[in-house]
């Protein structure tokens, strides 16, 4: 355990072949998939939230409009934020499990020295 004491230095878990992994086409693909999903989805999601906040601040007549009984646009829009949150979390998790996890498992297996490619054991080479 004494190896884990240097807090300011690079952590104890070695990255034996970081440069090699970084140049691996599978890593490039993993990074591309991650960025092409996460950045636009975050932006769209925040825009949807900002639209809601702006409507609350500047379009109060619109928000006050009644939809059904005492349920008005403001309430529906608010519940829409909940729905968007649940939906985005579900879509991302499905995407990550199908498109990201297999690639990162392969790369971890490679780093651990296991025969590359076919190993999909998610724990291979992970934090010990």
């Amino acid at each position, binding site marked *: 355990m004494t190896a884990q004491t240097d*807090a300011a230095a690079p952590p104890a878990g070695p990255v034996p072949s970081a440069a090699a992994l970084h140049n691996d086409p599978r890593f490039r693909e993993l*990074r591309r998939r991650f960025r092409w999903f996460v950045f636009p989805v975050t932006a769209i*999601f925040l825009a949807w939230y900002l639209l809601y906040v702006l409507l*609350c601040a500047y379009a109060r007549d619109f*928000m006050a409009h009644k939809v059904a009984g005492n349920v008005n646009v403001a*309430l529906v829009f608010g519940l829409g934020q*909940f729905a968007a*949150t649940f939906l985005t*979390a579900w879509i991302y998790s499905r995407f990550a499990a199908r498109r990201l996890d297999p690639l*990162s498992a392969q790369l971890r297996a490679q780093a651990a020295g296991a025969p590359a490619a076919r190993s999909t054991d998610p724990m291979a080479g992970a934090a010990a």
Partner: protein
Amino acid sequence: MTDHKTLTVALFTVFIVATLAITVVAGRRTRSAADFYAGGRSFSPLQNGVAIGGDYMSAASFLGIAGILALSGYDGFLYSIGFLVAWIVALLLVAEPLRNSGRFTMADAISERLRSPQVRVAAGISTIVVSIFYLLAQMVGAASVISLLLGVSSDASRIWTIVAVGALMIFYVTVGGMKGTTWVQIVKAVLLMIGACVMTVWVLAKFDFDISHLLGAAADQSGKGDGFLQPGLKYGATDGWSRLDLISLGIALVLGTAALPHILVRFYTVPDAKAARKSVNWAIGIIGSFYLMTLVIGFGAAALVGSKAIKTADPSGNTAATRLAEHLGGGPGSNGGAVMLAFIAAVAFATILAVVAGLTLASSSSFAHDLYAGVFRRGRTTDAGEVRVAKIAAIVIGAVAIALSVFARELNVAFLVALAFAIAASANLPAIVFSLFWRRFTKTGAIAGVFGGLISAIVVVALSPIVWGGASSTKPAVTLTAAQADKCGVPAASTSVGNATALVSCTKVAPIPLENPGLISIPVGFVCAAAGTWLSSRRRTDEDDVAFEELEVRSLTGVGAH
């Protein structure tokens, strides 16, 4: 009426004894630094998701949001939404990369690739400032809430409440470490969800599960009509600044969550990034359903108890949930009412204790791991030495928080929660996001971003109506009670006071009319981080590129993660 107090005290005692026992057992199983800081990284996604909910759903969000909903209607919903949607930022951008690249603290993840003790100090300071502001708000709030719940109002009882809460949180952290604290969060979150569920179903049943009927009754009983169901009662002034204040609050809530240190450290308690993702999903489900239930509880309190009765009991509405519980059980004086009141009061008490323990743990961990081990000792410590310092730090930070809370017990410190979110979003988020995703980011940029965001948020609040309460077009003059007029040193008929609880002066007009600093300080934080990076870009070396590539590999694949 004494029977419900006896029962409340009995339930408080049961909770305290149970959590102390859990803490002692967890403490026996805490040996290494990873056990103390990160619960041995052995929690399951479900356990950690529930604990995240426990850390996040403070008394402010249970009693406070229910109170705002009951008194100001729809505007309370704005808080719930901001608190929930923020989790998408945490899920998509922060949780997994942070789990892979850090070890014990938020500063670990930021300084990992920059390899700079100065960055670690900056992030450590920011961690401690955010946690202590949040802690103060919780402890001062706890004093008044527990006094209300127990029906005692003397000054001495408030001081003793603060001391007792502080002593318990120090015990949880020093004895139980992250394992003990996590179990306290889990117990609390389960109690809170049960309490909220019971009340929600009960309220809905009273209205035959007809939401529209509930809304109509709430609007009628509030005395404010349809306006109660629309945005604008709390943020109602029509001038430009108060609308900007609403936007400022919304942005700080949504960007602050993903950078709150006591939340971020929870990602280290699971084995890997995939487990961190799953725990955030559990947390989103739990927190989302909780805030949907507070909507029913808040409107139910307005409809069944009435806004006026709630306001008479406590002007800020903190007793809305407990009054509703009493009403549901059969009303004041009935046995059912006493049982429900005591149960919900005990849930609120559990909530307060668990949140303050999480905050104390995050700040003392950062002190020991970032400032003491990482910088003072340059890493020349042992695990055991570091944990010993963390425990001492928890005692010192707890004692300081107790002293400050006793000192501030008469002040209106609710703004500190919003300020903590704003500082997290302004100081921590730029450093976290740029460090994870921006190749050219430098240590100068990180330090400039952290201090730029931190200082600008505090300066904006220091120039705001929270500190300077003079009446203006944004802060219209309020009707003063005799006590308030006396405190402000003005005649009771004075029209120069816009905020009677202002910290420095009730009559001087604030230079910046925003109560929520985020709209100014978040851009300042990001601009400082970017400007610092550009100004220092010529000093970047090939080693910096290698460090960034290592971080990319580590954060995306988990290779070399702890």
